[in-house]
């Protein structure tokens, strides 16, 4: 499988979840795990460009596919990805635990709806939980990200 453009070998144990493979085997700890049953959205990554839950996939299933994690959005030292920049500007985070999942979901949302309506924004982030309940600023960040992406 390719992760952030780099080819990696498959995990040996088919029980390994993609989320655990990214974190424990590849050291990509930017992908967070919260509930590990698909509810919280923290572990969202892109699979061939579309956001999916990495805790609901076996790592072996990503063989032959391209995975993008939060680390793959912008190289260290280079400017932030527009979605990251927007979350930064709008304070779209408090503790930050949910942030990687939100950012990856929003990247997918803006890919499908480059100019989202408020309803599409709410729908697009409905699958991610923020326990600090910073949703108002997260919403603002999504609209700002759409502006920055244009």
């Amino acid at each position: 499988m390719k992760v952030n453009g780099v080819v990696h070998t498959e995990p040996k144990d088919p029980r390994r979840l993609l989320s655990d493979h990214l974190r424990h085997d590849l050291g990509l700890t930017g992908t967070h795990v919260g509930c590990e049953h698909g509810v919280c959205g923290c572990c969202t990554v892109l699979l061939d460009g579309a956001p999916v839950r990495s805790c609901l996939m076996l790592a072996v299933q990503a063989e032959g596919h391209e995975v993008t994690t939060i680390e793959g959005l912008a190289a260290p030292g280079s400017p932030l990805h527009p979605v990251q920049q927007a979350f930064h500007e709008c304070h779209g985070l408090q503790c930050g635990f949910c942030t990687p999942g939100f950012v990856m979901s929003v990247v997918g949302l803006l890919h499908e709806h480059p100019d989202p309506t408020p309803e599409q924004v709410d729908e697009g982030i409905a699958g991610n939980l923020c326990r600090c309940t910073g949703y108002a600023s997260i919403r603002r960040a999504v609209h700002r990200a759409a502006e920055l992406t244009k």
Partner: protein
Amino acid sequence: MKPARFEYHAPKSVDEACALLASLEDAKVLAGGQSLVPLLNFRLARPPHLVDINRIANLDRIYERDGGVAVQALARQSAVEDSDLAGRLCPILPAALRQVAHRVIRNRGTVCGSLAHADPASELPAVMMALNGHVVVQSRRGQRIIPAADLFKSVMQTALAQDELMVEAWFPGAHGKYGIAEESRRHGDFALAGGVRYGDRLALFGVAATPVMADPKDPTKGLQPSGDLEATPEFRLHLVQAITDRLFAA
């Protein structure tokens, strides 16, 4: 988190998958995994064998058949939701899919997987009941069609035999009055109660062990929904009436 130990099989064809299902004991089919993997993660399911069908080519088509929409086993819910064909021939299908979990889940989840999982609170089994659709299942013994009315047996139990793979779901062309309504505590959660209307047909979900057909004039007749932390049986009956009123108001 780590599922209990299992042997992983990744067949490249439907024939190979059927051969595995016929020879392995207690094998479970893995398609989108959006219902099965949570069960594995919590070890609520401990199948000794997983047959992952995701590597089978040409099993993700959405195509017109007999005036309706045929959805193959690996067609993702998001693809069906976006399908012009489904929107044209069977608009209730994309409308119902938008109620299924969240888009990120639908990017991976499959229509056939939802039907095979047969959660009594899920939308698609009720859509299939209301429309009188069917599924096509295959095994080494051949193919057979199971009509919606015969498919759902109990909570997460279908009429599929252990060696059968659901290869296709078929939803008839549906141009009559339709609607889907449900109540859940949060958007994307499982419904406390829900209903699908097609013409004068009404299928309810979340209120019995399987989706059930009901009389729109007396929708709660014979229903004995269970109670849990989220809703009492009485509240679910109230919701059934309110949802039916809403669906048949127009």
